[in-house]
């Protein structure tokens, strides 16, 4: 199915179109990361409808738009977004592969301090894996950490 020309269309309307016309895609990928030394590993799971939008192309704004909004929100005098138009008026990104979509999602939803320096320092802070590589039960969930030995192997 061809994506309509969406530049300038509110993102909410694009998502409504996607919900009506695209089947969700349950990704097998998971992103495991550690952002605080005293907390357990976090696991980012892509949303099926979002993944369908990413694979379809022409719907989602460039990830840099979210970074711009995050910069605004980090200002001490922030009360309300005034550059929301970036979400709607920036040329949407084209079709992505599932791997490219995961990379986009990392840049959108993981803390920048993690993905910008994930392989620096003496511990790997982030890893992309398949769902089946995660523990199969949630026993001791709050103690989960990235297995550094497994990665080295």
């Amino acid at each position, binding site marked *: 199915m061809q994506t*309509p*020309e*969406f530049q300038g*269309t*509110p*993102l*909410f*309307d694009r*998502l409504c*179109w996607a*919900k009506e016309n695209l089947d969700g895609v*349950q990704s097998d990928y998971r992103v495991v990361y550690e952002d605080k030394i005293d*907390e*357990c590993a*976090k*696991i*980012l*799971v*892509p*949303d*099926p*409808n*979002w993944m369908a*939008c990413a694979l379809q192309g022409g719907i*989602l704004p460039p990830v840099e738009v*979210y970074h711009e*909004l*995050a910069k605004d*929100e980090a200002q001490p005098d*922030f*009360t*309300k*977004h005034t*550059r*929301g138009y970036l*979400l709607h008026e920036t040329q949407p990104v084209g079709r992505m592969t599932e791997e490219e979509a995961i990379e986009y*999602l990392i840049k*959108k*939803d993981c803390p920048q301090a993690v993905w910008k320096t994930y392989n620096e320092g003496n511990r790997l802070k982030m890893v992309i894996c398949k*769902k089946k590589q*995660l523990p*199969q039960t*949630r026993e001791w*969930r*709050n103690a989960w950490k990235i297995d550094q030995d497994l990665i080295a192997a």
Partner: protein
Amino acid sequence: MALGKIKADTLEHSTAGSLDTSYVVNGSAKAWLKYDQATTTAIDVSFGVSGITDEGTGDATTAFTNSFSSADFVHSGFAKENGLINWKSCAAGNIRCVTITTSASNADYDEVAIILHGDLA
């Protein structure tokens, strides 16, 4: 754009009066989801969500595809059976919620639903 479009500021019923369409636009949920955190975390159904981050037992952050205009949006949530849901923090682009038992300890549930209303960015 190839989509059909009806533009109207007011909907009028023959006897029951009229309604400003801004009520419809502003009153619609802007994002919603139901997820399972009891086995491997997964989103079952959703709208307007880019992903969910499993942050620990009963602890999950939902990120939105279309950010809200600020962190001042309205959220409601439910967890299956006796589960309760608290929100821990929120920003314009995400909300972190914790599901707990009636004795206030974090717990994973296989059906957790969150609905979000408010002004979009």
